């Protein structure tokens, strides 16, 4: 086992460093998700209103963040905006901001979709008993929309976590970046280290993402059971 690549993982502080990188990854994803979800729900509700200019603006916002690849967004915010507009943030805060804006855009579409798929008669019944717009959303539409949107939201969360692997491009010391440092530092003494380091990173991502997607599946199943009796 002397020259087996697996020893690379446990040499010196390598393992702690990988865990530290994972923490950076998780922290950025978590903060971005929290901010993005809150903002996204507000934007999603606004998108169901009949105000045309508002809907056009929000639609443009959604399409911009959905169409432009995340790599390009990161580059744009990290390298190009600072030069043009004197807008300078450290890499990890900037990454959180970009991801939050992206999550908000995607989330607004999920929320809008869920809100308009609540059966029309529910809305009409609400109006019939004299609820105003706020009450209608608060007591009728949003509670019913939540169960519709949760699985899609969790899927969005897993996508965000996976996409954090792009952060190495803007000098954020995430788990992939640290993995590459370790691989390069040990490349000559342990050529098979690549396999083990990436294997461990795979395991990390899997351990975070799999429970989430399992949870999403379970919620979806429960919802169907409830809906169909």
């Amino acid at each position, binding site marked *: 086992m002397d020259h087996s690549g697996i020893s690379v993982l446990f040499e010196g502080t390598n393992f702690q460093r990988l865990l530290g990188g994972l923490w950076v990854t998780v922290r950025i994803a978590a903060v971005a998700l929290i901010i993005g979800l809150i*903002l996204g729900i507000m934007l999603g509700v606004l998108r169901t209103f009949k105000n045309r200019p508002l809907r056009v603006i929000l639609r443009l916002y959604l399409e911009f963040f959905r169409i432009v690849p995340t790599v390009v967004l990161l580059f744009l915010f990290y*390298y190009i905006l600072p030069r043009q507009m*004197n807008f300078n943030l450290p890499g990890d805060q900037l990454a959180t901001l970009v991801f939050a804006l992206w999550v908000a855009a995607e989330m607004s579409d999920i929320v809008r979709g869920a809100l308009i798929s609540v059966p029309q008669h529910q809305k009409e019944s609400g109006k019939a008993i004299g609820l105003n717009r706020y009450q209608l959303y608060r007591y009728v539409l949003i509670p019913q929309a939540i169960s519709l949107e949760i699985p899609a939201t969790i899927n969005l969360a897993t996508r965000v976590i996976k996409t954090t692997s792009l952060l190495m491009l803007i000098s954020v010391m995430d788990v992939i970046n640290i993995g590459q440092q370790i691989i*390069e*530092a040990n490349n000559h003494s342990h050529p098979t280290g690549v396999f083990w380091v990436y294997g461990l990173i795979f395991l990390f991502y899997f351990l975070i993402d799999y429970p989430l997607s399992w949870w999403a599946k379970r919620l979806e199943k429960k919802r169907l059971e409830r809906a169909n009796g």
Partner: protein
Amino acid sequence: MKKRSLTRLIAVVSVFATLLLVLAGCGNSKKSSSQSNNPSSVQQIKKNGTIRIAVFGDLPPYGWVNKDGKRVGYDVTLAHRVAKDLGVKVKFVQVNANNRVDALNSNKVDLVLANFTVTPERKQVIDFAKPYMKVSVGVVSPKSKPITSASQLKGKNVIVTKGTTAENYFTSKQQNVKLLKFDSKTQQFNALKNGRGVALADDNSYLYAWSKNNPKYTVGIKSIGPKSYISPAVKKGNKSLLNWTNKEINKLTKESFFVKDYNSQLKPYFGKEVKPSDIVLPVK
């Protein structure tokens, strides 16, 4: 009426929330930039007490991270010395080959010490100080199928890293060679090992080191294209730090700091065929 005002309220609140997110960032930067027009001048660096230096994190023996999580290497030793002579702390920012220029121009770092080769194209967008190393492009290939002359590369796949001198040279001077471009050193060597190209082009000193540790490969072409130099780089127009760095390089060359740096950081990595004088510049 009630409904309307509520709609408006929600609209205003969310628009403000979005704006706040964006402006929070702007506000910060305005504060820092109003202190001085040049956030990377020597005076400003001394005032801040830290110099931000861009280094590689995956390029042994120039800039890499050892098993204790410490940044080490030829460039890193120089970076520590520069910070010491300025009397400030050093903050390292890890970069890739193709974002070194952007890191400077968008004020992410004050100085780049990341094996940065001087080229006319780069000189137009950033300022280089005096060189502290010399290299040229080399080509490494498997020993079983060695490439020893440029003519053997015609129409074949050659692996390079984006933004390197090697990519530049082959794109402009050897247009009949097909290039496979990668984002990092890790990726380019994996591609060579997986046989995605017949050879890999990069700075020769770096390839000497790599082939010493990968005995199945040989640097078949030791030097192709013009000789080039490696220099510290600063943002275009940052005269203050540029002049200081030039003086520093002169001083360090005279006290043979670079030979010592070579012996401690590079020698263990290079084969016997490489001598300090192949890498370090002589005292003028």
